[in-house]
């Protein structure tokens, strides 16, 4: 194991230059938003999907598109509307009158990176079709099953402002997203740079610095990253605290939590912590990685009660309180 840990460490350190190059390339278009870009990369490296929430105009779509171009991946943006059909997403069979047969026309979901814009505006049928594809990495059209290209990553956005005529994602389906990111406004300095860059009308070209094969290799390294028993126990303590807060001296949270995080949360938190450690140039995950990524992984998995909503206690506050209480190893 000593040799393996050292080898992984070496591989991670060797990959850092590649990662920094990627960030620099993305930084040509996206000003600031380091947190967003980093999390997107974590999702990509950990083979997870990401839910983005933020007001319009925060460069959510641009960030995803830029990332896709930087890793030379096929990018597809799908605008979800109330009249969208599953076939519009995954594809359908088209009748060919020449031979009387049906051919499969693949839908826009056949891409490496999918941006499902305003996912909460499409009906449940469409959401289910997408989420099934996310889970299985394949779609079935007619009698044929088609695998989705790898790497495959879905970035879904939700508009927190316009809630009329929307179909909120069910909790069970929200659970399939590895992270939920809250995108915030840039600071003044960043926004000044944005308007200087974007107001000239010049289009900034992005050069691919990685390819999907490299992403696969990086994913393999991430999967090899060492995670100590103490860190695993820390993760489990946090997840169990969302289910049984009274066992962790958080009795005050018990009436506020309807449902705690599922075992999928433990898996997601572990893989995300490993990806975070990779981005930090380490071949091992630490409690610090768990703390950094924990809120993003858990905020959409803890369901609060009506009582919590009435008291304006969000799931974020609950998760933050859990992290404050659980002793760091």
């Amino acid at each position, binding site marked *: 194991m*000593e040799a393996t*840990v*050292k080898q992984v*460490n070496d591989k991670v350190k060797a990959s850092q230059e590649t990662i920094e190059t990627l960030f620099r390339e993305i930084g040509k278009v996206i000003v600031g938003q380091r947190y967003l870009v980093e999390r997107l990369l974590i999702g990509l490296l950990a083979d997870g999907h990401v839910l983005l929430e933020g007001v319009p105009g925060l460069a959510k779509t641009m960030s995803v598109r830029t990332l896709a171009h930087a890793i030379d991946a096929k990018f597809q943006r799908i605008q979800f509307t109330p009249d969208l059909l599953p076939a519009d997403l995954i594809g359908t069979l088209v009748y060919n009158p020449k031979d009387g047969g049906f051919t499969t026309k693949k839908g826009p979901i056949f891409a490496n990176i999918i941006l499902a814009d305003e996912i909460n505006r499409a009906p449940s049928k469409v959401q289910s079709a997408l989420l099934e594809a996310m889970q299985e990495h394949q779609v079935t059209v007619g009698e044929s099953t088609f695998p989705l290209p790898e790497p495959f990553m879905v970035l879904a956005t939700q508009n927190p402002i316009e809630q009329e005529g929307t179909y909120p994602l069910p909790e069970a389906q929200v659970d399939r997203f590895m992270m939920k990111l809250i995108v915030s406004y840039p600071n003044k300095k960043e926004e000044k740079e944005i308007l200087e860059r974007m107001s000239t009308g010049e289009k900034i070209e992005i050069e691919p610095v990685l390819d999907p094969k490299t992403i696969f290799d990086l994913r393999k390294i991430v999967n090899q990253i*060492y995670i*100590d028993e103490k860190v695993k126990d820390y993760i489990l303590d946090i997840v169990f605290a969302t289910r049984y807060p009274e066992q962790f001296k958080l009795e005050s949270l018990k009436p506020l939590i309807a449902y705690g995080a599922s075992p999928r949360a433990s898996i997601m938190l572990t893989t995300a912590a490993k990806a975070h450690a990779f981005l930090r140039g380490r*071949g091992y995950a*630490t409690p610090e990685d768990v703390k950094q990524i924990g809120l993003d992984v858990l905020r959409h998995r803890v369901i609060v009660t009506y009582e919590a909503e009435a008291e304006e206690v969000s799931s974020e506050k609950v998760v933050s309180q859990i992290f404050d209480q*659980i002793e760091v*190893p």
Partner: protein
Amino acid sequence: MIFSVRINKYLGLILGGIFFLHSPNSKAETFDLLTKVQPPSPRIESLDRPSSNYSLGSVIPYQIRVRWPSPAIEEVRMSSPDLTLENLELIGVSQETISGPEESASTDQILTFNFKGQKPGLAKIKRFTLKWIQSDGASTSELAIPPLELTITQPQNWWLIIFLSVGGATALGGLGFLFWTLSQKEKPIPQNVDKSQEDLILEDLSAAQQRWETNSHHQEFLNELNHLIGQYAAQKLGWNPSQEDYNALQKKAESKWSKKEASAFIELFRTLEYERFSGTVVEPNRLTKLYRTIYSFIEHKKII
């Protein structure tokens, strides 16, 4: 010669008798002298003087013991003495007669004069005379009693004294207890009186190192080092490891120390992380080096 003295003696008596018989009153007086009984003569046997200080309102006794040749006292009566007093008043006189042994043929008369002071200050009993008169009214015997001076003082209110004493003692005891309590509260915890935060952590570090040298539990030692340096960061920089990450720690360190020191401090945490979570086999010499680095950093930061 002897014959001549005897003759002279007898001749003197004869001549004295002839002379006496020829004086005009001598005969009566002689008759009186020959027929009258001699009056008794008392004497002061003892004087029981009062003490020099008496409080206002208390009885001041003055006791005189007079010895009479018995049975003379039965034939005399005492007249009221003429007392000259200053700041005193006579409140009573008592008398007691005690017969002596048969062979002494005397009687003791014990006279007790009781006085009272009139006001605080000097009081006097001037010389006075005790007189006894014969039963036929003729003055017979006198005895001079010497004068006396004493001081009358303000009376002691014993209840007030007791109350004040108890109250005073209680107050003193309460004050003493209060001062003791305050001194206990103000007294700092002994181990911190002379020791800084750094000193305490350095002591704990040394103790942890000694335990490690004894039991060689590397992970336990690493956990202790991590705990102590985290405690140091919390005390010196206000860093909370549960709520804040190393970025926050670095910012706090840079606000108080130089950039170089802050970086060195964060590096300690990173090194500890590596030893604790990387899965590598812990080497004792690396641990020793890490311990020394942590120790010297904290010692270097100690404010003397």
